[in-house]
């Protein structure tokens, strides 16, 4: 691959050690993510998508194999706050305003109040939360909470943005909107993105490549290229090529579900 790699996973295996029986969540997974690339992970429940994402974010340590991000260990990248992570729940601090929630990683890094407020305000604008700076998290809708979580993950200008089913709990219209926001954020920031999703349509709409995984043990079944023109918009879904990709992706997915 000619492009610079943002992240590289080689022969990664991860075993959850349990009482009596171990679970092989990932077995010999290899994957390279190019700088600025948008990669989606899709596959049936339990195929190890979250596990792979958590290894990339240094929330889990590989049992075997190597992982590097920008040529360094995930731990080094995390300690430098070069990784952004968005979870299915927004996980906002209920006792902080939206602004202070978004500024949290900068605050932990020791940034001055002025710097982190300026940055947080810019991010609030980027994710479309202008006017809600001083609101409490519980005053926000689910979609707005996820916007805040995305802004927080972007606050330290990460090299790699990891999202674990961030829109899974949202209604379709909100989800469509946030898909477009994510596409735009990816476009303007140039951050590399790994998105875990259960929706093949969401994956096709947003990705450069779609990684289809199968369970027991978690493996990569197939990697689909998604050459749809950029920038992506909701209109992208009207292209015949979009439907072709969705069909191809669904077929691959069904293979995975066949041995569930």
């Amino acid at each position: 691959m000619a492009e610079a790699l943002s992240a590289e996973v080689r022969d990664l295996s991860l075993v959850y050690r349990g009482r009596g029986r171990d679970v092989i969540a990932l077995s010999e997974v290899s994957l390279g993510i190019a700088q600025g690339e948008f990669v989606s992970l899709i596959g049936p429940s339990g195929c190890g998508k979250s596990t792979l994402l958590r290894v990339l974010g240094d929330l889990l340590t590989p049992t075997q194999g190597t992982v590097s991000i920008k040529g360094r260990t995930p731990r080094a990248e995390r300690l430098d706050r070069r990784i952004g992570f968005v979870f299915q729940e927004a996980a906002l601090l209920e006792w902080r305003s939206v602004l202070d929630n978004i500024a949290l990683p900068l605050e932990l890094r020791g940034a001055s109040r002025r710097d982190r407020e300026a940055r947080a305000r810019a991010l609030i604008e980027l994710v479309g939360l202008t006017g809600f700076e001083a609101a409490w998290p519980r005053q926000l809708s689910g979609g707005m909470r996820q916007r805040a979580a995305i802004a927080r993950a972007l606050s330290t200008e990460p090299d790699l943005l990891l999202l674990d089913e961030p829109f899974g709990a949202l209604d379709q219209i909100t989800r469509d909107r946030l898909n477009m926001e994510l596409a735009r954020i990816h476009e303007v920031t140039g951050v590399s993105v790994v998105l875990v999703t259960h929706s093949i349509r969401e994956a096709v709409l947003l990705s450069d490549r779609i990684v289809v995984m199968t369970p027991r043990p978690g493996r990569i079944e197939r990697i689909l290229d998604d050459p749809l023109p950029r920038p992506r918009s909701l209109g992208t879904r009207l292209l015949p090529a979009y439907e072709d990709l969705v069909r191809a992706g669904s077929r691959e997915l069904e293979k995975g579900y066949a041995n569930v």
Partner: protein
Amino acid sequence: MSDSTLAAPVPRRTAPLSHRLLDVAERSWPAVLILVALIAGWEWACAALGIKPYILPAPSAILTAALNDVPGLARNSGITAWEATAGFVIGSALGALLGTAFAYSRFLARGFLPFIIAANTIPVVAIAPIIIIWFGHGIGSKIAVTAFLSFFPLALNMMKGLQSYDRTVADVFHIAAASPLQTFFKMRLPSALPYVFVGLKLNVTFSVIGAIVAEFVQADRGLGFVIMTTYRTMAMPKLWAAMLLSALMGILFFLVVAMLERIFVPWHASMSTDP
């Protein structure tokens, strides 16, 4: 298009004082009405049914007895209030520290909790004489008894509170490379505050009980002392006055803690519910 095209709310951390006072007035007038009716009925019953004053003194008799010894009652109330407050603060502080240690060390929690829970079942009236022997006949021993009572609720609630943080929020702190101290002060402690206030509210009522029980055992001042001496001389109206003062003190302390809770935990969901 985005959600933010909707009108932004005007976030209010605290409503203006005049609104809040109106709010309080609106919510408390039924209770005030009942109280007034109760006192009137009580006064009427004592006279109409000829209830003997040592069984149930009339409100007017209690008030007269209280007014006859305002300086004495004030001084003794002050002493009990001081014992209760000091014991509450010391016991709560020690409880918070130990609860924190338990939350962070499974070894300490497993090692000490069984004994702490066992000690917690000792009736305060049984332990008070021992504490008074240890700490002497002054105010210090009353504070110690109160502290003993205030200790357990906070130790247990602090531990539970510090363990009750959201695991995904913990992941957020991990990803953001937070130090253990940052994680404590910016995540675990704020998450624990609702529990801490449950413990503090228990303590604050216990603290008045603790001080008065300690005074029953041995004292030459304080509301407990007044209750004991008036009991011996059957000066029931004054005993009632002292009893009502101790109840008032408990309520007052509770309101102070509830107010602190509103200041420190304004985000907590239970705060926004009526009444």
